[in-house]
């Protein structure tokens, strides 16, 4: 077929050209068919390493777009055009009339390793590929006409932010890749196939069609025309920016863990707020993201909700517009089914937390109701004792405690959550402290989008504070004072009369005076979790707590063999005695919580009154001030 019959155009093909072209054509086109398979043609064209719009142009010019398939004529013309383009000629019919070298086809290197390696590098390298293949998709679509039911909706969000920096754009795309690749090999539309087979293409040198055999092997596996039709209509694959890839999911789960070790528990609103505020998105958008992701509108995020929220944040930062409603792939049910299954490393947690909630919950709640009259100092002492128990047990078995959500609002972290804490939450929500915890949170680096996991997240990294707190010095504690934001200092003066509550609210400030005499007894425990009302001290290892807590209640049996300065308790088997101790501790904690909550509301009330007084005084001042003449 030396003559290409497109529009009566006669193309002279040289001997070598003809040979090469027919080789290529037969590669792309299994003999029984008259036309080349679109995907293999696409691969081949991409291997020419021409920019995608050039390829698009070529397709148009060669007439394949018009006739809807790549017949031999179109194919040959396309090859000629590729050669022309590679030689720097414009893509025109005229240019191929000249004598041209053979088109060169380079294969794209196999990037599976690259992708599994550092994602950053992967993004740098593979940017062209996703973009090219996206273009290819549209290009394919025009070629193949109805042969492909390509999903156009996923295309649009990806193509829509063209102005966004390339670094941003490639992230969701490449994640789409990761997802497509890891997941589902078989039933994909052509876009995935095309990409996949492209990636599979090993690198022949230019002009070396040794990969042809590899390609012919791989393409039948993809079963091009058959599977191209099988698009899973309910799911959208690589093109969907709202689909969370495995990598992303792992990252989100780790972030969740850093905020809340129990993956079955919730992140409270204030915690999540601080976390997401660090992403530097405007509050309005964060608010909208929250609205989208908190599906049950309870003011807290479960793991799937958190993943959805985080994903939305990432997407937004990468330039995507937030959707009006939560995309299907981000729904909690969907995510829960998908992501919580592999996350079964909480075997310990499950075993521990299950017996407790059912037994504890009713009991604890009733107790908290009755405990309102309890002495505050006593409860604070108990609280701290209980905390120590908690911490120790925590350290011992790395299990979570079933501390109710109220308490968790104070600690924010490293406390077990009762699985059915939903009941607790309506109550506890009213107790969720806002300013206290916000003021107490220590500054942390903002979380970055998943592509840069090497970034050491301050939350995840263990601080050397362990060493700092090994010394039982008040100087150390006072050394801690500067880090908390300046909102704290005025407090002690206000709350002198409420010193017991202050002990909880400001363990740092008040513990030094109240515990001077108790330091000796403090050398008993190693604890893991943070001090009760210091949510910021996520990584405060046990010394601080052990050193700062007041005398232990003798009823609490703790392993006194542990030296206080030992930073890490060896993992111990949880004895039933410890369990009981923990349960008592939990009960006490809950009682203390109720008391604290009440105190909190009282303080709020006082604050309001003081505020009113202040306003009144200000108005008086205004009146007394001499009238200024304008």
């Amino acid at each position: 077929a030396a003559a290409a019959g497109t529009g009566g155009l006669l193309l002279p093909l040289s001997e070598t050209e003809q040979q090469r072209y027919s080789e290529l054509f037969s590669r792309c086109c299994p003999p029984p068919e008259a036309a080349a398979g679109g995907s293999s043609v696409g691969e081949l064209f991409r291997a020419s390493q021409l920019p995608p719009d050039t390829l698009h142009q070529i397709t148009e010019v060669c007439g394949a777009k018009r006739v809807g398939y790549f017949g031999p004529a179109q194919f040959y013309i396309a090859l000629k055009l590729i050669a022309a383009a590679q030689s720097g000629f414009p893509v025109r019919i005229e240019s191929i009339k000249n004598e041209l070298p053979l088109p060169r086809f380079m294969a794209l290197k196999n990037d599976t390793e690259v992708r599994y390696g550092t994602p950053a590098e992967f993004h740098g390298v593979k940017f062209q590929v996703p973009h090219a293949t996206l273009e290819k998709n549209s290009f394919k679509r025009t070629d193949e006409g109805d042969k492909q039911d390509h999903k156009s909706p996923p295309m649009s969000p990806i193509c829509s932010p063209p102005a966004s920096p390339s670094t941003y754009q490639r992230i969701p795309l490449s994640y789409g890749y990761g997802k497509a690749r890891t997941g589902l090999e078989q039933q994909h539309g052509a876009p995935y196939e095309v990409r996949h087979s492209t990636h599979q293409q090993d690198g022949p040198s230019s002009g070396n069609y040794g990969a042809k055999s590899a390609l012919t092997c791989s393409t039948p596996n993809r079963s091009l025309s058959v599977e191209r039709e099988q698009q899973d209509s309910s799911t959208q694959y690589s093109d969907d920016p709202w689909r969370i890839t495995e990598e992303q999911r792992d990252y989100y789960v780790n972030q969740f863990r850093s905020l809340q070790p129990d993956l079955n528990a919730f992140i409270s609103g204030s915690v999540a707020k601080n976390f997401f505020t660090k992403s530097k998105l405007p509050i309005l958008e964060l608010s909208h993201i929250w609205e989208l992701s908190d599906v049950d509108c309870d003011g807290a995020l479960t793991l799937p909700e958190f993943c959805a929220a985080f994903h939305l944040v990432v997407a937004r930062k990468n330039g995507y517009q937030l959707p009006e409603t939560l995309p299907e792939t981000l729904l909690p049910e969907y995510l829960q089914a998908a992501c919580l299954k592999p996350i079964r490393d909480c075997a310990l947690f499950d075993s521990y937390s299950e017996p407790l909630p059912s037994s504890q919950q009713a009991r604890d709640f009733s107790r908290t109701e009755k405990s309102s009259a309890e002495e505050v100092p006593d409860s604070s002492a108990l609280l701290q004792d209980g905390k120590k128990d908690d911490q120790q047990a925590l350290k011992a078995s790395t299990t979570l405690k079933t501390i109710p959500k109220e308490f968790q609002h104070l600690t924010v972290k490293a406390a077990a959550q009762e699985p059915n804490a939903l009941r607790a939450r309506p109550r506890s929500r009213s107790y969720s402290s806002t300013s206290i915890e916000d003021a107490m949170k220590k500054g942390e680096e903002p979380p970055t989008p998943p592509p840069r996991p090497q970034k050491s997240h301050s939350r995840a990294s263990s601080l050397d504070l362990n060493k700092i707190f090994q010394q039982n010095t008040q100087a150390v504690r006072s050394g801690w004072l500067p880090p908390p934001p300046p909102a704290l200092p005025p407090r002690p003066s206000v709350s002198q009369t409420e010193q017991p509550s202050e002990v909880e609210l400001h363990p740092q400030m008040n513990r030094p005076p109240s515990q001077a005499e108790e330091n000796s007894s403090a050398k008993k425990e190693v604890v893991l979790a943070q001090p009760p009302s210091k949510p910021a001290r996520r990584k405060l290892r046990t010394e601080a707590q052990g050193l700062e807590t007041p005398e232990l209640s003798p009823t609490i049996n703790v392993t006194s063999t542990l030296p206080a300065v030992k930073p890490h308790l060896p993992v111990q088997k949880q004895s039933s005695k410890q369990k009981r101790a923990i349960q008592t501790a939990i009960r006490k904690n809950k009682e203390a919580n109720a008391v604290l909550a009440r105190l909190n509301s009282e303080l709020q009330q006082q604050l309001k009154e003081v505020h009113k007084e202040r306003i009144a005084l200000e108005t008086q001042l205004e009146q007394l001030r001499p009238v200024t003449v304008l």
Partner: protein
Amino acid sequence: MAVCIAVIAKENYPLYIRSVPTENELKFHYTVHTSLDVVDEKISAMGKALVDQRELYLGLLYPTEDYKVYGYVTNSKVKFVMVVDSSNTALRDNSHSSMFRKLHNSYTDIMCNPFYNPGDRIQSRAFDTMVNSMMMQVC
């Protein structure tokens, strides 16, 4: 189908006000503002002792020749005011109550959002959608 829906904070400033687009929306704002007095009157009439049993739905506050104004107050003294076209007799009183209840639920959902500071203007899209569904469809 309301003509205007407003959410008023405890301190009597509007958190959210949305009316059917007409040539004189300010009229609705004024109506809402004047109805606040009636609201205050009603809630103070109950007395402190009855705070717990106070009905949240206040009913018809204020009829004009064109409009009726209905009120609803929450336990935190956030007021919902709805202006309804008098000519629209399709609505019954209990439907007003249910509409207010929906408003109240949406409002609590907004409250759950940690990024929402109480006292801010309400800028939630979900709330907007819900309110739009309750507004009269003016073609």
